[in-house]
């Protein structure tokens, strides 16, 4: 609802956490009302860090945290607008 966003309303986003980000935050997923002024991936990480010490512990190594929007890797400057799901995780170590 673009008009609601433009008006500054919060919007709902599904957050997913993996590996040590998940362990430090203490849950694998949650749905949060994201303030309308949280516009980019970097804004989102910054806002989450204000939510409590467990988030701060998980996300303070900002360089080490990666974000995907709707299951696609996203750069810190990418807009989160329109994304239903954001995932936060450490650098990948598969293979």
């Amino acid at each position, binding site marked *: 609802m673009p008009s609601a966003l433009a008006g500054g309303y919060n919007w709902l986003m599904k957050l997913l956490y*993996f590996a040590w980000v998940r362990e430090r935050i203490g849950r694998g997923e949650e749905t949060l009302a994201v303030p309308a002024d949280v516009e980019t991936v970097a804004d989102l990480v910054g806002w989450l860090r204000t939510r409590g010490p467990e988030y701060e512990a998980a996300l303070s190594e900002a360089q080490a945290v990666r974000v995907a929007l709707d*299951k*696609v890797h996203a750069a810190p400057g990418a807009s989160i607008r329109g994304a239903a799901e954001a*995932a936060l*995780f*450490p650098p*990948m*170590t*598969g*293979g």
Partner: protein
Amino acid sequence: MRAPIMPRVAVQAAPFDVGAEIDRLIAGRTDFGASVVFTGHCRDEGGRIAALELEHYPGMAEKELERIAAEAAARWPIAGLTIMHRTGKVVPGEVIVVVIAIAEHRREALKATEFIMDFLKTDAPFWKKEHLPDGTSTEWVAPKQADDHARATWGRE
């Protein structure tokens, strides 16, 4: 003239039957000259590791493997491609990842395999946790700078 290939991508908790996967890709085919089968195995690191636990991002993991497969198929004229990755607990010796690439000539199959592994390491959402032999302690595997470097050598996304 080559028909576009349909890479096979799978993420699964069950152990792989690599031989069956090779057969599935090449059985009855006489149009390729080179096959490369890469398998990544759980190492015990001299007894330090009892098992690895592989966490993944369901949905995104498959999507990333498909994206990497498509990118490899666009870069090299490969005739067939399989990429599979384990999830959950694996013990030393077991296969974590398998890449099978077939092509008319060896260079394409080898390059595509190398490319896929370099991108898979840095881009596919899997994380390894080490289970140590004492049965209690666990530790997340740290990413390797060498992997970021390897990915960067391919020159673009």
